[in-house]
């Protein structure tokens, strides 16, 4: 028995969906539909005969109308209709499939049918069947509601009977437990839950129904019949205009034929589309098309706003996969629509979009006059649209090959995106919403902070050309000003993340403009290096970028030592690309696919990259200038001193081991050979090699940088020469040195004096004869060893202190003895500040603070953690 029923069920559900697909007309048959609601519920088998006749008569008129439609469609449809011709034979195997009826009519019948089956099942106490039927019923009713049709009284009645019989069954069950089998019992309890839930859902309707079933039914019928004639007149031409209301319908959209939407139905249609959003079978492209049409007919601002909101979200929905980016046409139209939306809102201050509003009836047209505050609030969020647009833009850039023209084309869209962001900013300035305003300004800042002036000017000129302008524009003379005012705004906002990011962008911008001192001071004063570990990964990336840019700016202004120290941190990790989010490459760690995916999503688009080769060149050259004289001095004292740059030293050792050195090809080759030349005192060769590096052309002000490098090479060459060859001379003429290194005599004297003063060179000047007199110190073996031992002791104590520091955390400056033992041990802040001026001792001091480790730990330790959270 139950099997039979279930089979019927199955076919039912099939037919249900298929029949819905086939529904062509509904409202032409409205009167009939109204009639059929009152039809007594029949079992499917009984009904089919009568229905078929219906469909037959129907089909003829249908096919006529259909003939106007597209060929392809027609063919498809025709065949179906043709099939109906001989429906009598088919009806038994394929019942319901060809039944062409009003949608509502049909649904009601189906409901009633399943109601009937439930009654039957009740009689035999088959709860499994009841449960299935009930599920179906609930589904149907829900769909009904999606179309904003009232709840059929039949359904409520059914609910009531179900509940009572459920109670009865439960009571019976308690008395005689053995009677029911396991699956049945399970179904019973499940039913209980379901009914309870559903009852709650329809509480109000149920109550109304209980009070006066008659009246309720009458009301229902009335609403059904009134709705239909109202809709009828305007839908004469098109056969299938109800389709947009029916989300299950897929074969719509006849090419040239336009839908006829009228302003009155927009909201209703809109709601139908919204209901369908996110459902499995929804055709997103279709929805977008419908919404576009709706937008065309929308008249009032309210309608426009509502449709635009839906349309933009629909566009964003179109591409659901995380890995691929939004199609560019869609993105462009979404961007235009956001523009339009913002335009409407700016022009009509009476309308506002907010993320949370009081509930309002979605179907009622609203205008400022009808609202109590004279402002129409619509639910939605422009900031999320802007965010999404921006994110999608970045995502597309991540996926497009940066070396193709497509990338460049895509990049051109940035201008319009930037305009959109600025428009949104205007809107929020007007409505004084601080939180989204901050976010929008941050977006804007992110588009310009790393760009050279010319690009920013181009972007800004586009903004000033548009009709809606934010308060902060480029009119204030320079990009610096612009960035400054944007950042000031963000500093004042309450969001600490935004503040941090604004700060970093600001510093980056200063660094980009070679304002090294300001950038450094801001970076140190922000105390970010202490807290950046706990920041999110994006901020850490920004931090790394900023630090690197500060290092580059130090290089450009000729502060070699500073530059070397700053860049050292990031190069010591050997993961430069990864830390700057400019490439994924893990040599040592194996990532799970999720981690890798997350990593890829973080990558910066190519045009934002800091050229790593240039970065490396800057780092290696500055390392060379710092390290080579140091190396030379080490050999003097015949002891291994702490190396300043391990990575440079490693490269140099490697280059030394080469049996044959060919002409330099890569940047590294150039620098390594230059280093050798510098070691040998051939500063001219060194200069030529360094200047021969091609990558310098990417650096702004390349000529002045090269000039600066030449000067440094001369100076460091002199120092190296003195260190290396001092043992071979007892006196050395200053004028000879000056000639050899093409330095003015005063410069030579100054450098030599400095070395003597700092006790790097045991020599003194003889003013009368103009020579440098060396004092040779013969060091005995035991002396030497004693010195080495003393140094080792020193390092050991320092290591111990460092270890304890780490254990206690930097906060507890247990060893900050102020001026007692080591005058130069101060709070971290001064140490950082002094970093610039300090010599070798300072370098060690700086390293003690753990700055070197910071990069390594920064992203490295953070990333797995973050991903774990995500996963």
């Amino acid at each position, binding site marked *: 028995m139950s099997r039979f029923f279930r089979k019927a069920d199955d076919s039912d559900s099939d037919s249900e969906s298929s029949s819905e697909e086939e529904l062509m007309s509904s409202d032409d048959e409205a009167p009939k539909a109204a009639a059929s609601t009152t039809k007594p519920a029949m079992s499917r088998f009984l009904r089919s005969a009568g229905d078929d006749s219906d469909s037959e008569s129907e089909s003829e008129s249908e096919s006529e109308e259909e003939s106007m439609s597209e060929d392809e469609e027609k063919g498809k449809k025709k065949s179906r209709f043709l099939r109906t011709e001989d429906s009598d034979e088919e009806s038994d195997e394929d019942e319901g499939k060809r039944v062409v009826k009003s949608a509502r009519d049909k649904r009601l019948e189906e409901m009633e049918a399943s109601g009937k089956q439930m009654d039957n099942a009740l009689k035999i106490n088959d709860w499994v069947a009841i449960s299935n039927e009930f599920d179906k019923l609930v589904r149907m009713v829900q769909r009904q509601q999606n179309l904003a049709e009232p709840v059929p009284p039949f359904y409520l009645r059914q609910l009531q009977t179900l509940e009572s019989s459920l109670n009865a069954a439960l009571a019976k069950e308690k008395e005689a437990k053995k009677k029911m089998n396991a699956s049945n019992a399970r179904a019973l309890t499940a039913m209980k839950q379901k009914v309870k839930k559903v009852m709650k859902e329809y509480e109000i309707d149920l109550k109304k129904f209980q009070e006066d079933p008659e009246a309720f039914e009458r009301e229902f019928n009335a609403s059904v019949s009134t709705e239909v004639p109202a809709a009828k007149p305007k839908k004469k031409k098109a056969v299938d205009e109800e389709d947009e209301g029916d989300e299950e319908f897929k074969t719509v959209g006849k090419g040239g034929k336009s839908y006829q939407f009228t302003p009155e139905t927009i909201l209703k249609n809109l709601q139908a589309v919204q209901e369908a959003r996110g459902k499995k079978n929804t055709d997103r492209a279709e929805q977008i098309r419908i919404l576009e049409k709706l937008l065309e007919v929308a008249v009032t601002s309210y309608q426009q706003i509502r449709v635009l909101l839906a349309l933009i979200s629909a566009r964003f929905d179109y591409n659901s996969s995380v890995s691929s980016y939004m199609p560019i046409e869609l993105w462009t139209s979404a961007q235009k629509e956001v523009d339009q939306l913002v335009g409407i809102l700016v022009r009509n201050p009476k309308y506002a979009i907010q993320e949370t509003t009081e509930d309002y009836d979605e179907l009622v047209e609203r205008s400022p006059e009808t609202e109590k505050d004279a402002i129409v609030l619509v639910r939605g969020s422009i900031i999320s649209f802007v965010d999404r647009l921006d994110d999608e833009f970045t995502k597309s850039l991540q996926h497009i090959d940066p070396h193709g023209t497509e990338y460049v084309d895509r990049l051109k869209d940035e201008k319009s995106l930037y305009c959109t962001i600025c428009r949104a900013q205007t809107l929020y300035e007007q409505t004084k919403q601080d939180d989204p305003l901050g976010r929008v300004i941050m977006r804007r800042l992110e588009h310009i902070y790393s760009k050279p002036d010319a690009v920013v000017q181009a972007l800004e000129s586009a903004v000033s050309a548009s009709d809606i302008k934010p308060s902060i524009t480029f009119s204030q003379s320079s990009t610096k000003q612009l960035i400054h005012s944007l950042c000031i705004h963000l*500093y*004042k906002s*309450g969001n600490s993340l935004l*503040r*941090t990011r604004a700060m970093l962008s600001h510093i980056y911008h200063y660094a980009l403009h070679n304002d090294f001192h300001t950038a450094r*001071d801001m970076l140190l*004063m922000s*105390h970010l290096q*202490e*807290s950046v570990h706990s920041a999110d990964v994006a901020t850490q990336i920004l931090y790394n970028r900023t630090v690197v840019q500060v290092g580059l700016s130090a290089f450009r202004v000729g502060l070699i030592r500073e530059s070397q120290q700053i860049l050292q941190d990031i190069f010591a990790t050997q993961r430069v690309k990864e830390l700057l989010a400019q490439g994924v490459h893990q040599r040592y760690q194996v990532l799970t696919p999720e981690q890798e995916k997350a990593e890829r999503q973080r990558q910066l688009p190519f045009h934002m990259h800091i050229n790593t080769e240039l970065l490396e060149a800057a780092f290696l050259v500055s390392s060379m200038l710092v390290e080579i004289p140091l190396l030379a001095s080490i050999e003097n004292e015949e002891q291994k001193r702490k190396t300043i740059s391990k990575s440079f030293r490693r490269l140099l050792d490697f280059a030394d081991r080469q049996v044959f050195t060919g002409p330099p090809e890569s940047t590294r080759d150039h620098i390594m050979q230059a280093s050798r030349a510098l070691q040998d005192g051939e500063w001219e060769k060194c200069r030529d090699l360094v200047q021969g590096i091609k990558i310098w052309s990417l650096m702004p002000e390349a000529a002045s940088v090269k000039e600066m490098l030449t000067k440094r090479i001369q100076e460091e060459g002199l120092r190296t020469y003195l260190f290396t060859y001092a043992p071979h001379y007892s006196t050395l003429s200053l004028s000879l040195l000056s000639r050899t290194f093409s330095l003015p005599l*005063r410069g030579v*004297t*100054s450098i030599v*004096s*400095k070395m*003597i*003063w700092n006790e790097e060179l*045991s020599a*003194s*000047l*003889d*003013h*009368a004869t103009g020579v440098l*007199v060396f*004092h040779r*110190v013969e060091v*005995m073996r035991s*002396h030497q060893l*004693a*010195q080495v*031992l*003393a*140094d080792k*002791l*020193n390092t050991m*104590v320092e290591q*111990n*202190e460092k270890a*304890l520091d780490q*254990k*206690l955390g930097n906060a*507890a*400056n*247990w*060893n900050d*003895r102020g*001026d*007692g*033992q*080591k*005058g130069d041990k*101060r*709070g971290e*802040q*001064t140490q950082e*500040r*002094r970093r*610039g*001026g*300090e010599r070798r001792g300072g370098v060690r001091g700086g390293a003690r603070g753990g700055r070197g480790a910071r990069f390594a730990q920064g992203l490295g330790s953070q990333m797995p953690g973050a991903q774990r959270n995500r996963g």
Partner: protein
Amino acid sequence: MAEYDLTQTIIPYCDRHLVFPLLAHLAESELFPVGQVQAAQYELAKGTNMVDYAVSLFEQLHPDEEVPPEFVGKRESALSTNERLQQEAQDVLNVIENPEVAQALRQDKNQNLQYLKEHYNVTLEQINALYNFGQFQYTYGNYSGAADYLYHFRVLSTDPDLTLSAHWGKLACDILTGKWDIALEELNTLREVVDSRSPSHPAFSTGTSPADPALTQLHSRTWLLHWSLFVYYNHREGRTLLLETFLSPAYLNTIQTSCPWVLRYLAAAAVLSRKASSTSGSSVSSRVRHSIREVVKIIQMEEYQYQDPITSFLRELYVEFDFEAAQRELSKAEHVVGNDFFLSEFKDDFLDNARYLISEAYCRIHQRIDIADLSERLNLSRDEGEKWVVNLIRETRMGSDAKIDLGKNVIEINRPPQPIYQTVIEKTRGLAFRTQALGAAMARTQGVHSEQPAVVEAAR
């Protein structure tokens, strides 16, 4: 030389009354047209209650014009206010000056208030009257009186803001009356108050609201730095103390962030205290002893923000080792020092010390020095130079290394290299202590974490 004058930069950080001496000095030094300075003085006085002074200034400025009538009214109202405030304050003062009361007063301010209220019916409002009167007296220039009242007020009051304000007022009074010892004391207490105000520097993320304690502290410190110049450049041991204070990390940072021009005074103090450092008594801390090195570092670092002949002198001497340039800068610095309000007193001293510094560096680098050349470096004539060099050799420790060869007119310097054992001793000195500190810290940390402050103390 006017371009190196710092008066204008400093004025915003001084109290109105503290500016009078600055302007008076300007009038004397004749860097600026007298008329302008007088006009500035008049504008300054107009804002105070020193009506008579303002009037006299006005007469000086505009000899032919009638004195504006509002001064008469102002004078009268000032007198009446004075009368009224004095009345109010007198009551309290009577009570306080009563020896019985003075004995009964204790450390605890609340208890004192209670006591006064119970026995003499003195309320908080009445005590505030002391403050008001003191402040009023200050505005018309009765600084010593004001200092008295503010002192009494501070002893009694519990209101932290007013007490702080009274602190500042008292310091200003002491400075203006020239009681440098008391002023120094006052300065130190004020510094403590300012330093203790915000215990922790908040990270960047915790907000920059207008009432940010870190920011207020920075402001207070900036002010304190400027005010302390008055004290430090007048007190006997001021220069050493100045180095001590200004080189402490907190104030060094303040200088670097908000007022780099104070570097001039820091540099000057470093030069001036050379003697203190060269005698290397155990009383001076290493901070002072190495002050020049420290100051040079900072000057180098802040070069992009601030430089003047004094700082450039140090930079040329110790960074570039360009003695000619240093000498040029020194001659410029001489003028600057002579015209500076704070430094003018120390002009000769400064010059003297600067010469020492030059010759010291010169001698360390050179093996054989032509006396004529050295004299030229020091801006001295040949005879003077010789005398100077002899003195130098006698005074400094190079005595044993340097010999004058009058035949060739040169100084020969033979400095034997430092023996190895000494370098080893140098290097290992302090290691034992540091290890000990380590051990102590380890022992403490094994206890509770909250004991960490105690560890810090122990390590020190």
